[in-house]
């Protein structure tokens, strides 16, 4: 894993160095260091409880680094939340959109925060996701809520898109929408996507670079193609699931259920 130097900080979308976090006696992150240059899709994989969400919360500034440092676009997200968050689109695992809002109110409210809000793109996404403008958020299905969350995460064309277990518990059609959004986002030059999931086949479809996290430590961080090449067995390229098992010892899905 590369050390984070001054040059890397300035060129990286995300630079985490020596990050440690404890919750009581549990160590959620143990001296995690990772650098994510701009313009790629990063798949953050690991079982439930591995530390994916904790790492993402540090990147968003929702958790303060107890030890180590976190820089997003070279800035500390806790010290300068406006400069960081205005460049990030975030879809949360726990869909916490305000249930009392209507879809059109959500759009009107959200666009006030982003100078780069693209009205036409927002409307295009709304129609594509079949979201009724007058629908109340709490009356939407889980998949529709995820689509609404994705819409507001994408419509300001963020430099960094952070998706925390976005397809957890969703049907294949919604998962397809999410993956499609990831692909569209990277199509824009210089955009970066951080995509956390324990569904490794999804990550395999879109990620350029895979970061495996297990029990609060990063066990592997490499470009997906390099990873596959380096794990080639008898000429056969293994799946990401097989690579995960080789490093963690158990499949991601079964680890998630533990």
């Amino acid at each position, binding site marked *: 894993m590369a050390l984070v130097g001054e040059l890397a900080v300035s060129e990286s979308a995300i630079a985490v160095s020596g990050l440690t976090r404890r919750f009581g006696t549990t160590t959620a992150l143990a001296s995690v260091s990772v650098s994510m240059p701009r313009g790629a899709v990063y798949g953050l994989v690991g079982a439930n409880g591995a530390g994916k969400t904790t790492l993402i919360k540090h990147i968003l500034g*929702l958790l303060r680094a107890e030890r180590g440092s976190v820089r997003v676009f070279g800035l500390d997200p806790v010290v300068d939340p406006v400069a960081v968050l205005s460049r990030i689109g975030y879809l949360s695992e726990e869909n916490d959109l305000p249930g009392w809002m209507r879809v059109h109110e959500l759009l009107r409210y959200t666009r006030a925060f982003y100078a780069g809000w693209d009205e036409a793109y927002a409307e295009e996404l709304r129609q594509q996701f079949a979201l009724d403008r007058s629908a109340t958020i709490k009356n939407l299905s889980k998949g529709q809520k995820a689509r609404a969350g994705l819409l507001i995460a994408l419509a300001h064309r963020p430099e960094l898109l952070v998706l925390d277990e976005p397809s957890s518990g969703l049907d294949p059609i919604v998962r397809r929408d999410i993956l499609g959004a990831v692909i569209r986002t990277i199509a824009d030059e210089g955009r970066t996507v951080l995509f956390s999931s324990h569904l490794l086949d999804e990550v395999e479809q879109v990620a350029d670079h895979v970061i495996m996290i297990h029990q609060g430590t990063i066990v592997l961080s490499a470009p997906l193609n390099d990873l596959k090449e380096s794990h080639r067995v008898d000429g056969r390229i293994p799946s990401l699931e097989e690579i995960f098992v080789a490093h963690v010892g158990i499949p991601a899905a079964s680890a998630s259920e533990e």
Partner: protein
Amino acid sequence: MILATIKLLIPGPSLTFNMDSAERFGVVVMGPLTATFTYFLAVFSFGLSGDLAARQSMYPARMFTLPVTTAALAGWPMLYGSAAMVILWLATRLFAVWPSGVDVPLMWPALLAAALLAWTQALTWMPYALPGLRVIVTVLWLAVIDSVALVAVQYKAPEPVMLAGLAPQVPLAFLVARYAVGRARRGDVPDWRGPFVRRRVADAPDRRDRFPSPGRAQAWFEWRRHGRSLPAWVGLLLPFELSLLFITGNTPALVFVILLGVLLTPPVMATFAAATVPRSNPAVGDSYGLTPFIATRPLTSAALIAATLKATIWSTVAAWMLVLGAIPLALRWSGTWSVVVEQMRQAAVHIGTPRVVVIVLLIVSGFIAATWKQLVQSLYIGLTGRAWLIKGSVFLTLTFLFLLGPIVQFIIDHRDVQGALWDALPSILALLVCVKMSAAAWIAARLYRSRLLSDRTLISGAACWCVAVLALYGLLAWFLSTPFFPRYVLALVAILAIPLARLSAAPLALAWNRHR
């Protein structure tokens, strides 16, 4: 237990509370009884976490999936609530008998409280066809029950008659509640808004302009989420209070006591509304913590606080528009307008019309300021997002409320204590000012070091506070021009009255919550 402690330990066995009249007893118990009754109404109807104005039931949807019958879902909160109300009254009555010796009814007030709570639960859990209909229906129905009870009291109905009238209320309310929860559980929410409303929303690209700034958008969010609670609760209580004007006749003292109660309603209700203001999403598990949706808004913590403060101002203004609109109407319709006018005329004869006008304006302004202060002064606790801190603070506040009445009565009854307190008043005020200014200095240093507020904002805030203190001091010096109050005491009072430390701590609390 608290009262027993005061009685036995603090004054000692030789000193007694002298509350041998119903009026004194009423003064002592009114505060804690009203506060606890209102708190029970809000808690047992799930009013602290629901939206009064919404069409959907206020019963928490997460409980619909519990493997119990609808009757159990409706029945248990009603049972607990009724029991709490009965215990509240019995404790109050115990206090009336010991140590006061005042004779008050045993059961019917407890049943009335239980009935009011049961109907509040039933009617707030009912899904409605129109937004806001819940408030109207609940207010009207509770006003009917309250009025009937008051008329019975007016005609000195004996306790068995009162009991006979009130006893069926709780079972009847239970039947309505079971029906309401059943409908809510099935997702049966009628809609009378008409298809044209939905079509208009769907077709129009955006009926209103964009928000001019992120701060305005956030203020709108806070208003929609929390701002309507206070006006709704005040609107709920006003009809009961003002209906008393219809049975007081033309007794000036009673009319003014009722008006005082009405004026006190917004500040008192603001205490409860304040509990909901810092909660970002009561529907999620950690309802005290900031949800990621809010925490990831690209706004500074100071801007988030500013939006909350704006919404509390709008909330205060809305609540007071209701009060100031309803009072003249109620005075007119009840025929007590002339009583108030006559009292004002007499006051004008003694102290002059301009002074009467200024006094009335000052009283109303003071109540309005107190309402806003109640809404914001506990933000520094609520915004921390720590349940233990918030619940501990509520417990301490309720304990303080319970202690306040007996302590005040004890002071009133003992002239030597009054004398000692009067002599020590400047020292007490000076000590409080020292505590306040020390806390403010510490908070300012933390704000400066954490860069949560810019230097300009810090200096502007301090300057505004100084101006407010000077203005209040000038007002007090003009109004209380008497040798009984030295000028420096007025200055200390002005410093203590204008919020500083707790309000300044709100950004720190939010940052502690937002960046855990």
